[in-house]
C-alpha cells in the first residue's frame, strides 16, 4: 500500500511517515498543496493523507482536484479545527474520511487501512491462500497456524501478492506499491525481499516466479 502525506509541518509529516513505514506502508511526503498534486499525478497512491491548512494551495483545493481527477485514490483529511461544520465541509468536498488533530496513530493507521480496503472492495478483511493467512489490520501472517516472523516490508509484499488474488504482479508494481521514494529503483531490493520471504514461508513454495512477468501467488 502506498500513501502520500501532504503536511506542511515537516516534523509532524516525518513522524507520521516513520510510523507508517514501520507498519509496512510505503509513504511519501509533500510539503505543500502544489507539491502534493504533482506527486499524486506521478504515483497512483492508495490513500492521500491531506492536511487542510496548507500553504500555496489550500487542502480543500487539493482535495477537489484529486476527486475531480477520479481514480481509486482515497483522501483522508486532517485538520486542526475540528468543528462539526468543518468536518461536514471537508467531507462534502469529496474527502473520504476526516480526522481532527490531534489524533492517535492507531486511529490514523486503522483509517488508512480501512480506506485502502474500500479502494479494492473485493478484498476480505483477512487474506487467505491455502494454509497461508494474513491479517492486514493486526500485521500478522500465519502458515498452518504457525506465526511467521516477517519484516514489515516482507509482510507488505506478501499482502500485495495475496491481494492481487492470483494475478501476476510485476517487480515494478511491487516497487511502486510497497516501496516509497526512499527505495532505489535500480537495486535488486524486490528480488532479495522475495527471496527472504520465500525462505520464511517455507515449503511447499507459495510464490511463483513468472518469467518476464513477475510474481504470483
Amino acid at each position, binding site marked *: 500500500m502506498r500513501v502520500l502525506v501532504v503536511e506542511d509541518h515537516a516534523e509532524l509529516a516525518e*513522524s507520521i511517515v516513520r*510510523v507508517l513505514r*514501520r507498519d509496512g506502508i510505503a509513504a511519501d511526503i509533500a510539503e505543500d498543496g502544489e507539491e502534493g498534486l504533482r506527486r499524486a499525478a506521478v504515483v497512483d497512491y492508495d490513500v492521500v493523507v491531506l492536511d487542510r*491548512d496548507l500553504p500555496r494551495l489550500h487542502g480543500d483545493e487539493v482535495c477537489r482536484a484529486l476527486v475531480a481527477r477520479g481514480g481509486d485514490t482515497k483522501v483522508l483529511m486532517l485538520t486542526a479545527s475540528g468543528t462539526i461544520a468543518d468536518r461536514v465541509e471537508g467531507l462534502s468536498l469529496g474527502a473520504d474520511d476526516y480526522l481532527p*488533530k*490531534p*489524533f492517535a496513530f492507531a486511529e490514523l493507521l486503522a483509517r488508512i487501512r480501512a480506506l485502502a480496503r474500500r479502494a479494492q472492495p473485493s478484498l476480505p478483511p483477512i487474506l487467505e491462500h491455502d494454509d497461508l493467512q494474513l491479517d492486514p489490520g493486526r500485521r500478522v501472517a500465519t502458515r498452518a497456524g504457525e506465526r511467521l516472523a516477517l519484516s514489515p516490508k516482507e509482510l507488505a509484499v506478501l499482502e500485495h501478492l495475496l491481494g492481487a488474488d492470483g494475478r501476476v504482479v510485476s517487480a515494478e508494481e511491487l516497487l511502486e506499491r510497497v516501496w516509497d521514494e526512499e527505495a532505489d529503483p535500480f537495486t535488486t531490493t524486490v528480488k532479495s525481499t522475495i527471496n527472504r520471504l520465500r525462505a520464511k514461508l517455507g515449503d511447499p513454495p507459495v510464490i511463483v516466479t513468472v518469467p518476464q512477468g513477475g510474481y504470483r501467488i
Partner: protein
Amino acid sequence: MRLPSPTVRLRLTLLYGALFLISGAALLAITYFFFRRSSGINLIVPNGGHSNFSRQTLEGIESSYAGLERAHERSLHQLLVDSGIALGIMTLISIALGWLVAGRVLRPLRTMTATTRQISEHNLHERLALPGPKDELKDLADTVDDLLSRLETAFGAQQRFVANAAHELRTPMTLWRALLEETLTDPDATIDSFRATSRRLLALGEEQERLLESLLTLASSERGLGRREPFDLAVLAEAFLRDESPEAAALGLRIDTALGPARAAGDTALAARLVRNLLDNAVSHNVPGGAVHIRTGTGADGTFLSVANDGPPIPPAEVGRLFEPFQRLGTERTGPNDDHHGLGLSIVRAIATAHGAIVDAEARPEGGLSVEVRFPVPRDVGKPTVAVGGSQRVGSRHSGESRDNP
C-alpha cells in the same frame, strides 16, 4: 375582558382622541356662548310719545315674548344636545383615525423591532435598511445598522481569533502526541531515542508556554491598564538592545539608533513588551546585512518610538492585516523552531491602544516595515502645560474609549 397593554399606539390614539374631545368641546362652548349672546330676543318697547299701548296689548306682547323666549331656550338646548352628539361621533371617528394614523407612523418601528429581534450572532450581516425619507425613525434605523456593522466586525475578529488560537494550539499538540506515540509504540526504541523525544517535547512545551504567555498578554492588554507609572521609551529600547543585540549581530544586522528622551506613562512591563515585540519583529523579518532604525523622542503631540527595518517587500494592502492576531505575511509559516506565532504586532497594537497611543505602520518602498507608535505626553510626569494634545487620552484609563483607529 383583558385590558389591552398600554402600547405606544394605544396611548397615541387616546391622546389624539382626548385632544380632539377637549378642543371640540372648547369650540362648541365658545360657539354656544357667542350664539347665545347674539341670538337673544330683544323686545323694544318705545317710551315717551308713543307709549299709548293698552294694558292688553302689553300683556299680549309679554306673553308672546315669553313664548318666543321658551322657544329660543328650547332651540339652544337642542343645539347643545346636537352638538354634544356630533362631538361624540367625531370623537369616535377621530379615535379610529388616530388608531390608523398611529399604526402607520409606528409601522417602521414595528418592522425595525421585528428585524432586530431576528438578528443574532449567526446573521449579524443582516441590516434594517429602512427605506424612506431622512427622519427621526430613519436616523434610528441607520444608527442601529451602524451598531450592527461594528458588532459584525468585532464578532468576526473574535471568531477568527478563536479559530486561529485553536489552530495554533492544536498544531503543536498534534506534534507532541505524534512524537510521544511514535517513540512509545516503537518496538526498537532505545534510551537514546526516548531521550531525544523527551528533549524535543520539552522544547515544544516551552514554545507552547511562550504562545500561551503571548495570548495572555494580548488578552490582558485588551482589558486596559491596571496601573500607571512613568517610563521612558528610550530606556526601554536601550535595555532591549543590551540584551538582544548579539542576536542581531549574529544575523549581520546593522542597528542604527537615535534615542531621545521619550517619557510616557502606563504599565512599564507592557510598554517594555511593546518595544521588545517591535524590535523583535524588525530583527527577525530582516534580510541578511540589513538594517534596523530605532528612534525615540518627544514631539509636539507626544512622545514617539519609531522602528523601521529592511526586509522583503510588503504589499501596502497587507500592512493592516499584519496587526491582526496570527497573521503572517503571505505564505510565511511557522517552522518547527520558530516561536513567532503571528501575535507580536497584534500585541503591539493592543498595548498601544491601552495606553491611548496611536500606531502608524507603512510598508517601505525599498522593502521592510516602518512602524511609529505615538504616546500621549503624560500629565503627571511631563510638563502639564505642554500636554494639551495628549491630555485627553491620558485621562482615559480604558482602552475602549480611544479605540477608534482600526
